[in-house]
């Protein structure tokens, strides 16, 4: 039988340079949201506030860029907002012992309304704010690499944050497994009492983890608002904070795992965009695709875990 049509479709809709570029771009905010979830979950904290943190990051990125006419100032403003929101989240949930889920929900709702409010008050517009004065992050061409065929267009020419996300994946790995603080963070996440009796300040480690998660999330936010189009749109986080949590679970709480599962998300979203152009499916259905993919991935992940469990049962039964 002739399967060349399958290859054809795969090449047309999935594996071509443009799509792979799209994948890497669209995966970037998810990678960062995933790191946000990772760093807190490995410290034993269930942080569902990533969504709100992303939204704040996006807004302050645009504001910083608009007022200082500099994308770098936007980046800085966003990161500061991440530190502040992360700090508040940590202060209330860790120090004042507010319920961590309620606190997370509160931050998400607050971020949603606060950014809508601020957009209207500060920029005098509703829904979305864009302006030629908002400086975008320039693409970075990597010398030598950019001239290599295939690899050049694939790996060169993205904005700073894309590369930063890759670097942060590596740094997070090194931090977790090669530094004493990473060891402390994992110990705190796995057995806080053990860490405590050895003189590790559990509270401080968790505080740090939440602050770091704020920075990761805010970078995801800046990428959304300054990475491509220079604009802030209401609710532009669009669930990426939660997808970050899914990606973290799917990636087994490992930096590289988070990166790879984010790519999966990125490719699905890219295909979605392509299909929108083809008009073969209703647009609303297509924009559901990334979320459906997340759902499917998690379901498959869980099913496979259950299957492995069952297989182990049967193996043990045969041995007995």
């Amino acid at each position: 039988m002739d399967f060349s049509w399958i290859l054809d479709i795969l090449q047309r809709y999935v594996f071509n340079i443009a799509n792979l570029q799209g994948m890497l771009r669209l995966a970037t905010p998810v990678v960062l949201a995933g790191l946000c979830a990772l760093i807190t979950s490995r410290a034993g904290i269930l942080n569902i506030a990533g969504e709100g943190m992303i939204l704040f990051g996006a807004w302050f990125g645009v504001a910083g860029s608009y007022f200082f006419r500099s994308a770098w100032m936007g980046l800085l403003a966003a990161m500061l907002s991440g530190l502040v929101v992360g700090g508040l989240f940590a202060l209330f949930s860790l120090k004042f012992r507010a319920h961590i889920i309620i606190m997370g929900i509160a931050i998400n709702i607050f971020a949603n309304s606060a950014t809508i409010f601020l957009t209207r008050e500060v920029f005098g517009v509703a829904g979305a704010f864009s302006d030629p004065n908002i400086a975008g992050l320039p693409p970075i061409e990597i010398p030598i690499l950019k001239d290599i065929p295939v690899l050049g267009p694939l790996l060169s020419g993205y904005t700073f944050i894309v590369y930063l996300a890759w670097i942060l994946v590596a740094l997070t790995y090194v931090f977790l497994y090669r530094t004493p603080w990473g060891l402390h963070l994992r110990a705190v996440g796995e057995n806080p009492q053990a860490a405590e009796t050895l003189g590790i300040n559990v509270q401080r480690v968790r505080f740090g983890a939440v602050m770091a998660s704020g920075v990761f999330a805010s970078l995801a936010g800046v990428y959304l608002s300054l990475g491509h189009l220079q604009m802030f749109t209401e609710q532009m986080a669009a669930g990426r904070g939660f997808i970050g949590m899914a990606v973290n679970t799917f990636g087994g709480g490992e930096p590289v795992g988070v990166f790879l599962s984010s790519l999966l998300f990125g490719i699905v979203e890219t295909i979605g965009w392509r299909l929108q152009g083809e008009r073969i499916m209703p647009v609303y259905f297509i924009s559901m695709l990334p979320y459906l993919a997340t759902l499917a991935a998690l379901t498959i992940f869980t099913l496979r875990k259950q299957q492995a469990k069952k297989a182990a049962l049967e193996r043990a039964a045969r041995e007995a």
Partner: protein
Amino acid sequence: MTTAVEMLGIRKVFPGVVANDNVNLSVEEGEIHALIGENGAGKSTLMNVLFGLHHPEAGVIKIRGKEVHIRKNADAIALGIGMVHQKFKLVPSFTVAENITLGSEPRHRGIFLDRKAVHDNVMEISRRFGLQISPDARIQDLPVGVQQRVEILKALYRQADILILDEPTAVLTPKETRDLFGVIRSLVANGKTVIFITHKLREVMEISDRVTAMRDGKVVGVTKTTETNPTQLARMMVGRDVLLRVTKTEAQPKDVVLQIRDLHVFDDRNLKAVQGVSFDVRAGEILGIAGVEGNGQRELVEAIVGLRPAWNGEIQVKAQNLTTLNIRQRREVGVSCVPEDRYVRGVALPASIEDNLIVNNYFKPPIAQGPLLKPDVIARHAQELIETFDVRTPSKDVPAYALSGGNLQKVVLARELSAQPDLFIAAQPTRGLDIGSIEFVHRRIVEARDRGAAVLLVSAELEEIMSLSDRIVVLYEGKIMGAIEGARATEEGLGLWMAGITSEGSPEAAGH
């Protein structure tokens, strides 16, 4: 000889309780000092004060003759005090070496872990004290005895000279206990001082140089071990004469009540916990299941009562197949159980004692009439059981969590035995109880047997198994290693079976 630790006039008050009342403790350098007492006597409080986890209202602590102020855990560690807690504080997915060095890891260029130094330091300290471990093994893969060794090394790595061991033998096999005692002796030979918390009097006699006994927050006696005996120590701890041995008559076994054939059960990690176990329990006898914890006992009990599915095999009570019945149906057949974790499965902690006493029969007369409960009957029911089982409580309406462990266990016993079971399962029934309560629980178990119930006793305490059981089987890695009549069993022989050794013959022979 100098004094390593001196605690003078220590007073520690918790809301409503004086945990330590003018307590004096003096431990000589290089000695093994046993600290004994019933639960709630204040031993752990005293040690937590010494280790900087509690702050006393009054009192002075001197370490090596110098007065010190221990405000936090880190102060105690800096003074060379180390503590091995009853519940280990290890990170399961970390290696042995990572656990030992955690919190004070050697670094490489200031910011990186020096993994070679971590490994080497741990090897060095393990060699110096003759405590063998493999630094790269993960904690989750190691047996309890080795995990405990890691805890001791953790303290030694932090240069502890004074080691506090909180009930260290509670989780060990007899063999592991002997190894631990060897380790303790070599530590003392290396100039360390050991404070050994326990309520097992035999161990006190075997390992300690001196003993301090506590009762109700006060020190009631200090003596050299050579100048005392278990009976005297028990009297000191409890404040009255205690029967260390259970008195019971010869068993009169009748029909088979519980029949188990080729039972296989999985644990929570989906590993086979019970592997092809078969045995019978007859009416009027106590079958003791001995074994180190985690060898399938929990899963076996849960499979019988219906908390866990049996993978295959037969469970019959009074010739009725249980495997297809749900928990309530099994109870209706005549199964009662004192579960091993009384705080989780034994009682509902926030519910009143009265309510806890009816959870097994609230749905049927006389407690209920149709869909309605009968408060007056329930109240009378509770009052009666509280009296017969001597539950010490201000009223039947207080929540279960307000009771001490011993009284809580009496509530569980009262409920389970009042159902007049044909099969009575007691899982670790005296764990964590003091000598007085243990005596009570043991008497009730023997009474249940004499009434004609088949009793399945599961316990990790060899002494308990040996003094109560008419027959004993030993579980090791989910299999029965051997069975023997209670009267013919010896501790050494059972100990071998518990360690999985059969080659040295029957437990009877091995004992002589």
